[in-house]
């Protein structure tokens, strides 16, 4: 379930962001974008593992948000997941914030 704060939505990722988890996130994000909330932040505080198939699905959502003149970011990202994102080029498409408060401050 997303937490909407003003025009920014925070979505919580589970412990393992695999293709199934990413599909659920993608559906939620898609609904938010279609409803007009186009600033999205994925909270990875619980995420310990990701896989490339899951990340590929998230890239599609990032592209959708950008297409609608929105933005996508991540917060509370572990060093290893951040490194994985960098390898896959994700950090060129999405911002990484240290935490939810900083994301909200910068996106308002």
């Amino acid at each position: 379930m997303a937490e909407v704060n003003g025009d920014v939505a925070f979505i919580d990722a589970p412990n393992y962001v695999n293709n199934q988890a990413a599909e659920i996130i993608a559906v939620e994000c898609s609904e938010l974008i279609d409803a007009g909330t186009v600033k999205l932040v994925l909270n990875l505080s619980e995420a310990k593992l990701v896989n490339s198939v899951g990340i590929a699905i998230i890239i599609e959502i990032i592209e959708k948000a950008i297409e609608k003149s929105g933005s996508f970011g991540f917060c509370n990202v572990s060093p290893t997941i951040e490194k994985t994102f960098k390898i896959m080029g994700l950090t060129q498409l999405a911002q990484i914030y240290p935490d939810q408060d900083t994301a909200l401050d910068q996106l308002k």
Partner: protein
Amino acid sequence: MSDQPDQDVDLSIPMVPDMELAATAVADSFGTFMGLDSDKVEEVKIALVEACINSFEHSESKERRIDVNFSIDDVGLVVSINDGGSGFDLEEAKTKVAEKRNEGIGDRGWGLTLIHELMDEVKIVTTSKGTLVRMVKYR
């Protein structure tokens, strides 16, 4: 004869979605046992996830199981995955990934890149028992 017991861990897992987590749980324990830095353990786990899901997707093994071995050598943690299939042509795989990306089916095929970037040594060979992926993470 050495008094030191063999410290290898061998795991056999079915090719079932999310069963790669059984391998990462062992990687966690084994990394802790050998005193590997926690960030390095996390990198091993992501590389291991990618190696497992590659095997699940591409192996033509009839048994539908993969064997994962964890061992310690002079330089660090060694993880070997054997998929019991018919082998793997790295150049053919790279060509297919490039073709998919050119067609815009683009964001797959990152597994091998992640494995190479997150591990310190990677060797992929075809053996009589299938494809063997040997990955090393230095201490």
